[in-house]
Every structure is written in C-alpha cells, then in structure tokens.
C-alpha cells in the first residue's frame, strides 16, 4: 500500500486553494465593509445632538413680511425651520434666507461684543466705556443743537420699539427719526387719505387681482409678502396674469406671463403710455368717466398723454408699440388689474414721479380703493402705555434730511440688510465729526459705524413684527426666543436706556417686556380681528380673550393677530394728487427729463444697475454661500452681468476682470455674460454679507439723486488685465 506523503507541493496547493477559496467567500468583502464602517466613525465627524424632537412655532423676523415658521427642535435647540402651512398670511412660504435662520447665531461674523473702530481695526471695549463716550457726545448735542442733529435709522418701523426711537429723536432739536425706503409704503403714499381717518393706511389685495403689471417689483422673490402672490399662483395654473416691466431679466421676469424689458429710467413713460391707451381707447371702468372728464380739463394731462401714443412710448422705452397697446388692453380685459411699483429690495427705489405715474394706472383700472387693488386698512392698534406729554418724532425719509447735518446717528439693524447705501448716509453726516452707533448683530454698516453695540438676533429675543406694508389688513406677531443670546447682546431698548442715562436725558426706563405687553394690551383692547394660534391650530376671535395676559401667552407660542377686513369704504379719489394740475405739470417735466436721460443711454456708454437677492443679508448661513457657489441661481458677489454684444463692443470676455467707472468712483468686477441682458446694461449684485471689503457695495459708486434714488447710473466699463 502506497503511503500518502504530504510534501511541500501539497502544502503550497492547500495554501493556494485556501487563498483562492477565501477570495470567493464573503470574507474579504466583509473585511472591506467593516473597514469602511470603521473609517466612517472618526472622532472629528460631528455627531448630531440627541434628544426629544419638539415642534415649536414662531414668526420670521428677518424681513418685515413676518412669515410663520415651524421650528423642529431637539430639546431647546432648533435644527430645522420650515414654513407654517396654516399661517394666514405666509401660508407655508419661507424664503431661502428664512430656512437658514437657525444658523445665523453661528456665523463667524456675528457681533457679540461692544466694539469701536480704532486705527482701522475693530476692538472690543467694555460697554460702559463706549456708553460713556457716546453719552458725552449726546449731552453736548443736547446743549448745543447748532453742532448738528441727532438722527435714528429704524430698520423695522412700526414696532413698539420704534416708539422708543421716536421718543429719543424728539429729545433733540432737529432730531430725525428715519425710516428706510420701502417701495410699497412709498407707492401707497400716493393715495394717502383717500379712505378717511378711520382707515389711515392702505394695503394691497394681491390675492384677488386678476392681472398684475409689475414695474420692477420682484414679486415672486422677495417683494412685500411673497406668499400672497405665490399662493394665488399655486391655487390655479392661471393665477393672476403677470406682466413684468423692468430692464433686468429677473427671476420674476422669467416666471411672468410676459416681460417688457424697458430702458432704465423709462418706467415713468411706460406707465403713462399704458395710461394713454386706457384713456384714449376708453378702456377704464364706466364709473370713472366723470373722473377722466375732470382730468381732461387739465391741459398738462391732455398734452402729456397725447405726447405718449404707443409708437412714441415704445420708442422711448425700447419696447414694441404693440406690446404697449396689448398690455393696456389686457389690463382692461382683466379688471381688477393692479399696477405695482417695485424697485429691487436693495437695488434701488423709484422716485416720487415714477410712483405717481405708475399708480395712475391703478386709478384708471379702478384698482385704487377697490377689490383686488389698493384697499383701505386700519392701523395696528397703538401700544397701550403712557406716552402722554412725550413728543414722538415723525417718520421721515433720509433724503429729507439736509446734507452734512447729522452729528450723531443711531442705526438700528434688526433687519439684516443695508436698505440704504452707506454713501447716502455718509453724505448726511457732519464731515469728520459725526458719531455713528449701530445696534447690530452682523456686519451692517460696519464701514460707517465706529461704535457697535451687539443686539440679539432672530430666534434669540422676543421681537415684534408689525403689519407688513403690503398687507390688506393690520397684523401683528412676535418672534419667540428659542436660543440664548450672547451675554453682551441686549436689546436696543436696553441700550437706549443706558445711553440716555449716560447722557442724562429725561428718559423713562423702558423694557422690552413692557413694550410688548403694551402692544398686546392695545390689540386686546381694540377687540377686533382674530388670533391664529399654532400650538393648538385654532383661530380665535380677539374679543374672546378674557385678558391681555391670556393673549400674551398665545403670542409667546408664536401666534399671529389679523385685523378684521375693512368695511366697504368708498374712497375719495378726487382728493388725491391726480386731480391737482400741478401734479401733471410735474409729471410733464419728469417725462421731458426722462427723455433726455434715455436718449443719452441710447448713444454711448453703459448703464449700471445694482440689484439685490433674497440671500444678500449681512449675516448668513454658510449654506447660503454654498448655494451661490455651486449653482448659478444667484449672482456671485463681485460680478458684473453684461450681454455678449456689450462684451464684444468692449472687447471683454467671460471671467475677465474689469472696472466700472462712474462719476462717484470705480468698482472692480469680474465679467459674466448673460444672453438675457440688454445691450448696454451692466447689472451688479449687492453683496451685503461681505464685510471684508473684497466686494464693495456697488451702490456706493452709483449716482444718488437728491431724493435718494440710485437706480441707474451712466458709467464706463473697461477690462483691467490688458
């Protein structure tokens, strides 16, 4: 019998076979799998917080729209924000900036300490030292008004905190309480007083409009309360017919049913051209006939409309005459049709004449004072606290303040946007001597403000959101604190108390709670409207609340109060400015000036127009920058958008560095080509979140007119790398 011998060959065969067999088993893959899992658990990979998931409700305080917010929290920490579907005004809408609101406290640019600009660097200083320096300055101005005026810019007017600001301004001779340029408020101001004393304010009934002619209003992006229009468009595929009249192909223009790319500065002529068609073809509602007859008796009115037939209007505006006539006829076929005046939120407001001309369309379509148009509304009830004997400064526009007159400026930066260009503010300051103090949480006006005192951010404090400018009824809600503010950040009211004490002013000690309670008591006392509570998903009549305290409890869980709609009011339109001959004389002069401006644009150079986007805030989440980098939805900071034909004319190419030169200075940009841009136009994004100075605010090189308008500026554009 042959003996089985295990030799070296057998061992090698066995090992080789084993290796081969193992490779065919799941073992190597299991090892690989385990290694993969193991390498995913490095200590530096963040571990999300654990805990009970809760849902809370609040109101977004990042802009005046006051959208309802559903907050997902783990314990006390917000981890996700979404729109609140049941909210009576925002209806589940939350803009991109609002979705990231819970990231703001962690922005590295967050201001958490009182600081002062010293030798071109910002240094943290004790609050007492800053208040002492500022208090001395205020006391000096109180004693010597000739040294300059005290002014306050309130980024969110209409709050109970605003009363504290107005009271401070009234303490000084010539003190000014300044509100930022709000296109809606400016526009509706044309019809002030048409509904009598009971309805001192006006709102916009966008929801029931059948057609909207928007002059530069970014209706589908951030204008007013965007949800009002978006919900209408969501409800049906038709929605209101939207015609967008603006030089830039904005996202709203892209979504509109038609876009009329007019030349910048020609909107006034476009509006009057449309009005001319409505009047000449008698396309206005029949009940307006007496009004039109009254208007026709004014020579300037007749001559102005006669001078702007569709052919002439189209020629001046850079659009076809057919488009002018068609749009006017569509307006007549879709009553109630509404004309809205925009001006991109930071990009640049329209002037008073534009507002007058565009709102005349609302008069001619019956939208002024009618359903689906401009509707009367009551005021938000005043806070119920004793202000007897205290004078309150009236709101004013910065353009009304004389140049070089402000010696002490307080800037409230509750809304994280720079609605007014620094250059316009600078013009109003006493050269070399003015003191600027910002109550800020981000980088607002950091180039202007030697002194910064930190205030809580959205989600860190109980903040009042008063009625949005476009709301058809008065409303009020509060943003609820969900995360703690940095220890040094206290509310602007508390800073005002300490500042007034330091300056030894006659000043009542105010508190945030007392102001909020006073507002809520005022609302409760009026007994009107309904309160929408989200913790229990109910709407309850205001009159059913037994006490103001009960209402306060509901507000602190994120409720919203809406006034009841106005009773049927017949507006007295004949009292409006349109029935005064001087208005038409003024518009006639404005048209002549506009023709001059437009003819210059046609001949040479380029026109610079700044524009802003929903994500351009002074404090932001890193995800906002990521979105801008990784998509072309939002223009990147520092670019200039031009058409390929303009690029060809100026020998520029995509990505090249270039310089924009205006009469106010130069701006370095990088060229971006866009087929939808009109030849000769240069659109530059306002990058408010940039405090490094790498991308300066383009508005500061624009020409700012006497009435604070910076829409379009003639400029030269040339390449830099030659």
């Amino acid at each position, binding site marked *: 019998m042959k003996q089985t011998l295990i030799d070296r060959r057998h061992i090698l065969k066995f090992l080789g076979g084993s290796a081969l067999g193992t490779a065919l088993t799941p073992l190597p893959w299991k090892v690989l799998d385990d290694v993969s899992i193991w390498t995913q658990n490095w200590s530096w990979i963040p571990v999300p917080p654990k805990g009970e998931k809760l849902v809370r409700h609040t109101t977004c305080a990042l802009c005046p729209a006051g959208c309802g917010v559903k907050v997902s929290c783990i314990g006390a920490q917000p981890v996700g924000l979404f729109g609140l579907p049941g909210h009576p005004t925002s209806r589940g809408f*939350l803009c991109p900036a609002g979705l990231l609101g819970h990231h703001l406290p962690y922005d590295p640019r967050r201001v958490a300490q009182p600081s002062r600009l010293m030798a071109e660097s910002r240094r943290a200083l004790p609050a007492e030292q800053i208040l002492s320096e500022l208090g001395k300055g205020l006391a000096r101005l109180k004693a010597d008004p000739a040294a300059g005026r005290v002014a306050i810019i309130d980024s969110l007017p209409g709050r109970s905190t605003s009363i504290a600001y107005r009271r401070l301004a009234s303490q000084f001779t010539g003190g000014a309480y300044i509100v930022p340029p709000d296109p809606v408020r400016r526009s509706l101001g044309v019809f002030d007083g048409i509904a009598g004393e009971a309805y001192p304010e006006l709102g916009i009934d966008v929801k029931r409009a059948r057609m909207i002619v928007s002059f530069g209003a970014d209706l589908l992006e951030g204008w007013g309360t965007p949800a009002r229009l978006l919900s209408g468009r969501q409800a049906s595929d038709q929605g209101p017919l939207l015609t967008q009249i603006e030089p830039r192909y904005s996202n709203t223009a892209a979504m509109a049913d038609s876009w009329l790319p007019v030349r910048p500065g020609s909107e006034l002529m476009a509006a009057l051209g449309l009005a001319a068609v409505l009047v000449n073809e008698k396309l206005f509602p029949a009940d307006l006939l007496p009004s039109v007859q009254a208007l026709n008796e004014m020579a300037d009115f007749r001559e102005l409309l006669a001078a702007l037939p569709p052919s002439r209007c189209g020629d001046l505006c850079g659009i076809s005459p057919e488009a002018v006539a068609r749009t006017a006829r569509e307006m007549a076929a879709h009553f109630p049709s509404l004309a809205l005046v925009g001006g991109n939120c930071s990009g640049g407001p329209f002037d008073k004449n534009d507002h007058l001309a565009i709102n005349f369309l609302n008069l001619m379509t019956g939208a002024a004072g009618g359903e689906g148009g401009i509707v009367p509304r009551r005021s938000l009830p005043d806070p119920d606290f004793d202000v007897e004997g205290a004078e309150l400064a009236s709101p004013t526009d910065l353009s009304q303040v004389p140049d070089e007159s402000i010696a002490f400026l307080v800037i409230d930066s509750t809304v994280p946007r720079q609605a007014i260009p620094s250059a316009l503010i600078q013009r109003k300051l006493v050269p070399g001597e003015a003191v600027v103090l910002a109550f800020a949480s981000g980088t607002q006006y950091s180039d202007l403000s030697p002194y910064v005192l930190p205030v809580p951010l959205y989600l860190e404090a109980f903040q009042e959101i008063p009625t949005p400018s476009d709301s058809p009824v008065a409303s009020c809600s509060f943003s609820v604190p969900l995360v703690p503010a940095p220890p040094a950040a206290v509310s602007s009211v508390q800073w005002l108390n300490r500042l007034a004490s330091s300056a030894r002013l006659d000043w009542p000690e105010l508190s945030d709670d007392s102001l909020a309670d006073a507002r809520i008591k005022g609302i409760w006392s009026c007994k009107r409207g309904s309160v929408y509570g989200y913790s229990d998903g109910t709407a309850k009549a205001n009159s059913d609340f037994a006490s103001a305290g009960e209402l306060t409890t509901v507000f602190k869980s994120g409720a919203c109060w809406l006034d009841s709609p106005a009773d049927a009011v017949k507006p007295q339109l004949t009292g409006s400015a349109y029935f005064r001959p001087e208005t038409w004389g003024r518009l006639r002069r404005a048209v002549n000036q506009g023709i001059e401006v437009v003819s210059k644009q046609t001949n040479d150079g380029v026109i610079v127009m700044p524009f802003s986007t929903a994500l351009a805030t002074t404090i932001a*989440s890193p995800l906002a920058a990521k979105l801008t980098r990784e998509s*072309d939805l939002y223009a990147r900071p520092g670019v200039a958008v031009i058409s390929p034909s303009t690029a060809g004319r100026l020998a520029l190419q995509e990505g090249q560095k270039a310089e924009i030169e205006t009469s106010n200075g130069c701006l370095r940009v990088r060229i971006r080509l866009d087929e939808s841009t009109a030849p000769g136009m240069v659109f530059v994004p306002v990058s408010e979140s940039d405090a490094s100075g790498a991308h300066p605010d383009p508005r500061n090189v624009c020409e700012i007119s006497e009435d604070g308008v910076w829409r379009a500026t003639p400029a030269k554009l040339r390449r830099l790398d030659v």
Partner: protein
Amino acid sequence: MSDNMNHKQEAGGTRPVRHRFGMAVDLDRCNGCGACMLACSVENNIAPVPEEADDRKGITWIRVYRARNGAAFPEARTVFVPVLCQQCGHHTPCVSVCPQQAVDVDQETGIVGQIPERCLGCRYCMAACPYHARYFNWWDPVWPKGLEKTLNPAVAPRMRGVVEKCNLCHGRLQAAQAKAAAEGRRDVRAEDYQPACVEACPTGALVFGDLNDAASQVSQLARGPNSFRLLERLKTEPNTYYRSKRRWVRELAAQGVTRKEESVG
C-alpha cells in the same frame, strides 16, 4: 412618456416594487429660489464644503439648473430645472455597477438607496449615473463652530471618500414608518411624509407621491400631456417627472435626445 405607468416597475430589472415613490416637478412654477437645495442641505446634514468647491465638487442632492432657450435679448428665456436622483425604476445604472452593494432599490418604496457605510468611494456609480445626481465627499464634513448643534439627528453625517445622493429623505421615511408602526400599520404610504425639498418649495413646483397610485396627484401630473422625463431613451424608467406648458422647454429636452442619438448613430 412611458405607457407602462400603471404597471409595477421592476427595479434592477428583477423584482416588482410595492409602491413607487416619485416626484412631479412643474418647471413653470419653479422660480429658482433654491429653497429646495437649502432645505435638503439642512435636512440631510450636508456640510458647507470649503470655498474652493464648485458645482462639480460641491454636494447638493437636489440642484436647480438654469436652462436657456439659446436666443439673444430680448427673446432670451430661462427655465429652472431641479435635478435630483431620478429614482430609476428599471435597470438602475448605479445599482448594477456598484461593487459593494452599497446601492439598492427598496422593494417597498422603489427608492434607490445609498448606504454610505458600504461605499468604497470607487465612484463607478457617479460615472454610470446619466443624470449627474450623485456626489462624492471630497472633504471631511466640517461645520463652523457651534453649527454642529443644528444638525438633524435623524441623519448621520457622511465622511470624506464616499458617494451620496438624494434618497427622498430617508430620515423622514423612517420616522413615517415608525409612526405607521405605532398606529398598527405595516405599510407606509406616500401621504405619511414629504421630502424636505417638497415641504420647502414655496411655489408648489415639487409634488411627491406614489406613482403606483393612479389617484394620487403625482400620478395624475405624471400622466399629464406636458409631462416628460429626463433621458427617457435610456429606458431607466425614472420616477421623477417634469412638466412644462412652454413648448421650447419640452423641445429643449427633445433636441438633446436627438443630438445624442445622431452622434451615436
């Protein structure tokens, strides 16, 4: 549009799925605000990658592209096209190429899932995906100080070296499954949850639901006359449908297919 809408799809060409969760995207409503992209990043703990990241290296499970009609001013027009994982229902390309079985199709929902723990980072799936809807983690996930407190506990951050993609908010699906189980149901329905992008969309452009349910809104929208899918000629049967009344938008998709077929031929 495919004519087998009402038939159960075969994932990977093998087994039928119970539900077919998918999406209908109305391109006429998308206003390009990017809220879907941000909501997705917040929900799924997608880290803000370093500044050198661009549209190729950055991670955005849903990405809104701007498509143009090619005309010059003033006829130039734009449409915003949200592109996310199309949840291919037939011969899913990423499934078939993955050497690690890190991609699979859920037989309950038809959702194409990605298991980052299994992923080797070979990126075959990225090469195979015709929709460029997969993203590679080029960097460790890092958030600015303090921001890690805002992470969603339902989703684990992924590390450098793995591929990730839209899974129609798996964390939310799990929560819906848990809720359904608590209510004594074994079956989770599309109505039980919404992906974050759908919830955040301010214009209602995104509609989510079960394409196997003929009565669902998403199913009706998908069958609409203006509905189409991306790269239908590949026969991957995506569960994401697009619709637009604008002829040039639909023609844009058709032109793309024609050009490609011509070059292949």
